[in-house]
C-alpha cells in the first residue's frame, strides 16, 4: 500500500512538473478556468451550454497573424458551434507590455469585428501558462469526456497564414471533422507561428 501511495504521489508530482513546464498535447486533461468576457461576466467552460467541446484560441487584438486569421476563426465558430464545438478566444497579453491588448481594447475589437464567440481576458496569464500557449494565434481543441476536458488538438488553424484560399492543410477543421465522426485525429499537434504572448515582466 505504501508503495502504491509513493508511486501515486511521485506520479502526481511529475504531472505537476510537466504541467508547469510544457504545453498540453493531445490526450492530456485540460483545466477549466474562470475568466471575464467582454461583457464583464465571468465565464468557465462548464458554464457554456450545449457544448461537447471547445475550440480554445489564444488570441489578441494586435498581432498581424491573428488579424490574418480573424475571419477564419469566426468561420470556425459559425460552422462548429452548432455542432457542439464553439470558439472560446482568450487574450493573455499583458497590457503593460502591449497596450493595444487591454481589456477595453478587447471590448472594442469584439464589437468592431462582431465576435459571436466568447472573448476572455486572462489577466493573470495563469490559463495561458497552464495550457502552455506560446503564441497568438494558438489553438486548443478540447472535448468533454466523462466530465473531463480532453485535449484533441494543439497548434495552428491551417498551413497558410497569409492566404486562407492557399491553405491546403486545414488542421483545426480536419481535427474537428474527425472528432465529430468519432474518429482519431490524424494530426493532433502542429506548431503555431505567430506573435509571442506578451508575458508580464517579473
Amino acid at each position: 500500500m505504501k508503495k502504491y501511495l509513493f508511486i501515486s504521489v511521485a506520479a502526481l508530482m511529475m504531472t505537476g512538473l510537466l504541467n508547469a513546464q510544457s504545453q498540453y498535447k493531445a490526450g492530456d486533461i485540460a483545466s477549466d478556468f474562470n475568466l471575464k468576457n467582454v461583457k464583464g461576466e465571468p465565464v468557465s467552460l462548464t458554464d457554456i451550454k450545449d457544448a461537447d467541446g471547445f475550440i480554445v484560441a489564444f488570441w489578441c487584438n494586435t498581432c498581424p497573424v491573428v488579424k490574418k486569421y480573424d475571419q477564419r476563426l469566426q468561420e470556425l465558430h459559425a460552422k462548429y458551434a452548432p455542432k457542439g464545438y464553439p470558439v472560446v478566444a482568450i487574450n493573455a497579453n499583458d497590457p503593460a507590455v502591449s497596450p493595444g491588448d487591454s481589456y477595453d481594447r478587447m471590448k472594442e475589437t469584439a464589437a468592431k469585428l462582431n465576435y459571436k464567440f466568447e472573448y476572455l481576458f486572462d489577466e493573470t496569464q495563469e490559463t495561458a501558462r497552464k495550457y502552455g500557449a506560446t503564441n497568438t494565434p494558438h489553438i486548443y481543441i478540447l472535448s468533454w469526456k466523462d466530465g473531463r476536458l480532453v485535449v484533441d488538438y494543439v497548434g495552428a488553424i491551417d498551413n497558410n497564414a497569409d492566404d486562407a484560399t492557399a491553405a491546403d492543410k486545414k488542421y483545426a477543421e480536419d481535427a474537428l471533422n474527425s472528432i465529430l465522426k468519432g474518429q482519431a485525429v490524424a494530426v493532433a499537434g502542429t506548431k503555431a507561428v505567430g506573435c509571442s504572448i506578451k508575458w508580464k515582466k517579473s
Partner: protein
Amino acid sequence: MKLFIAAIALLIFGLAPLPAQKIEKIGIPGLEKILASSEDQLYVVNFWATWCPPCVTELPYFEKLSKEYQGKGVKFILVSLDFPSQIDSKLIPFLKKNKITADVRLMTNLDYNSWIDKVDPGWQGNLPATLFFNNAEKTKYFHPSEVDEKELRDLITKYKQ
C-alpha cells in the same frame, strides 16, 4: 550620339534610387542549403518578421554586428517570415527605412510545420529565434527568443571559438 546615349544611361542608372535591397526568396531547399553550409565559420541565422515587434527591436543589433564581423568568420543571414503578399507594402519599405544592408532572405514556404523542425525540433514557432552554427566545428545553438546587443555579442563570442 554615343555620348548622348551614355549621358541618358548615366541619368537613368545614376539617378536611380539607392540599389534596392536584394531579397532572395527561399523555400525549403534554400533553407536546407543554409543549414548545410559547410564553410568553417559561424553562421548566425535570425528568423524574424516586420510584424513581430521584438524582432524589429533586435534587428538593428544584427545589422550592426554583421558589419563589425564582416570578413571575420561570422556570416549573418536574416530569414524573414513576412507574408509574401506584403513584400512591397511592408518588408521592402521597412528595410529601406531602417537601412538594413545585411543578407535578408524571404521564406516563401508558409507551411511552417513542413520545415520548422529542420531548424530546431525544440522551436515552438515563436519569433524571433536565432540559430548559431558552424557545421565544420559541429557546433549548434538555437536561441528561441529575443536578444539584446550584449547577449548577441556574447553568443557570437561563445560560439565563434
